[in-house]
């Protein structure tokens, strides 16, 4: 069966299993499939992916903070005043209502396709754990917990993996500043620093397209 038919079938199977808990789906032909489920159905969705759709291989689990960074875009110079830009939260494929979204991916090693699944995270920042569906989610949830501050109900051991215990804040949130970037701009799109022995106002050093 070709990939797109498999992806369509996976969406149908998920709809049969989850009913109206399946909020939105997107199948991009020849590329991938995205589905979004209600937060309270996250665990059931994992079971359905594993058993009904037959995705036996756990790929990853993580989160996205959809808020545009208050510190400017990556290419902006943080030491300069910020340009006006749209600060509304716009979610990606299959939409969403909340600032944080959990997303995960599982694949089939026999049918050779995968599904990316998303869910909105409510204000209590708590989601059910996926360990009963895919054991490998354990470490991924610990990472999401420390980097985004998401709690996983039922997770046995949400200790920090990377950060020292007692670290305050959640580094992957968009409102967590990258301090090194705040004090000195990244040399950027073109290198604006003059070469040694070259006057700072020479035409090569003006940051033009060269």
């Amino acid at each position: 069966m070709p990939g797109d038919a498999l992806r369509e079938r996976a969406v149908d199977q998920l709809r049969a299993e989850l009913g109206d808990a399946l909020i939105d789906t997107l199948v991009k032909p020849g590329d991938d499939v995205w589905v979004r489920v209600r937060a309270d159905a996250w665990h059931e969705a994992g079971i359905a992916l594993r058993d009904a759709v037959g995705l036996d291989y756990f790929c990853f689990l993580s989160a996205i903070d959809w808020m545009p960074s208050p510190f400017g875009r990556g290419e902006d110079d943080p030491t300069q005043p910020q340009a006006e830009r749209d600060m509304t939260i716009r979610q990606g494929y299959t939409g969403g209502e909340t600032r944080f979204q959990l997303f995960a991916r599982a694949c089939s090693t026999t049918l050779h396709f995968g599904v990316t699944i998303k869910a909105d995270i409510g204000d209590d920042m708590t989601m059910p754990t996926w360990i009963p569906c895919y054991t490998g989610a354990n470490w991924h949830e610990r990472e999401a917990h420390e980097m985004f501050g998401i709690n996983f109900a039922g997770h046995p051991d949400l200790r920090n993996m990377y950060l020292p215990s007692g670290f305050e804040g959640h580094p992957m949130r968009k409102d967590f500043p990258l301090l090194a970037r705040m004090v000195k701009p990244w040399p950027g799109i073109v290198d604006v620093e003059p070469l040694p022995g070259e006057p700072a106002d020479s035409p090569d050093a003006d940051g033009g397209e060269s």
Partner: protein
Amino acid sequence: MTMLGDRQRLAYIASQAADARLNVELETEGMTLNIGPQHPATHGTLRIICRLDGEQVVWAEPSAGYMHRGYEKLTEVRTFPQVTSLVNRIDWLGSFANEVPFILAAEKLMDIEAPPRAQHIRTILFELSRIANVSLFLGDLGVQLGAITPVFMAFRDREYVLNLIESATGGRFHPNFDRIGGLKDDLPKGWIEETRSVMRKLRTFCDEIDDLLFGNEIFQSRTRGIGVIPKDVALQYGLSGPNLRASGVDYDLRRDQKIAMAWDKVDFKVWTHPDGDSFARCWVRLQETREATLIVEKLLDTLPAGPVMAKVPRIIKVPEGEAWVSTENPLGEMGYYVVSKGDMGPFRVKIRSASFNNISIVPWLLRGVYVPDVITILASLYFILGDIDR
């Protein structure tokens, strides 16, 4: 083949049960053994805390994070072309292979495709980084078991591959050669002939390792039946690459997905092993290295002519969208989930690295094994610290 697998699994369960019974009968005082973060057998700064009962590990917990560099956060303040110089430091032994999936994801979002020659050269360099990476594993494997000779042979022969990568890209470890839309440059003159002769040398190296190590009785008895990962457990934990194939799962992203690379232009064999033990994992890697040299030779035979760079704008802005691309890297499935908001830099990049999943099985796998086997099991799982911590 399934018969063997079932029998092995039964034997494994029986041995675990016997060990559990022994522990109940002989109440011995526990002890905590700390392996790492600085330890010759950990390939970097991985710390493993083991609670022992006599010679057996009853509880083990890897403590990663000593090398966390925050690449996911750093990508958010870089432009797309700048990200390659970050991500090729994830798995530093096979750097070029890290750049490829990210570039492919960016190309997918921009809806451009590299010219056939660029795809071919990418695949050749990808397989060369696999050979450089895994040949070091094959040599290092001996050191973990007390055999010193293989590691010298591995460093000697890996040098030939690194020289090839250097002469084509300019960098031995961090090529930074991949560009959105193609490659920085074409291959230098005489490179193809040189590569053919190096591939022959590497096959000799594989034969030597096969004789020296895999035929060795001590090696066999230290690895056979040790650290068995059954198929379903491997899948549950998301093990990938040779670790998964050594558990009998016939899954290789080079063959099993449609991707803008040249693997579909050549025939190659995907090696699997039904046993799932340390020996199987090492054996699969040996066969894969040999297969990779053959893939490189076949790709050199079919190298098409043409440009190595597609037409791309000078200032790269990637349209809004999301893309997931993963490839079969030396360590396993390496993928990038790239979210773009139409700016010059990515909005969010989720890096799915192979070692992170591969090592997350360690608490399960080390339960009940003997202390010397901890080292062989860790070596056979083969992780790179940068690939765990990112």
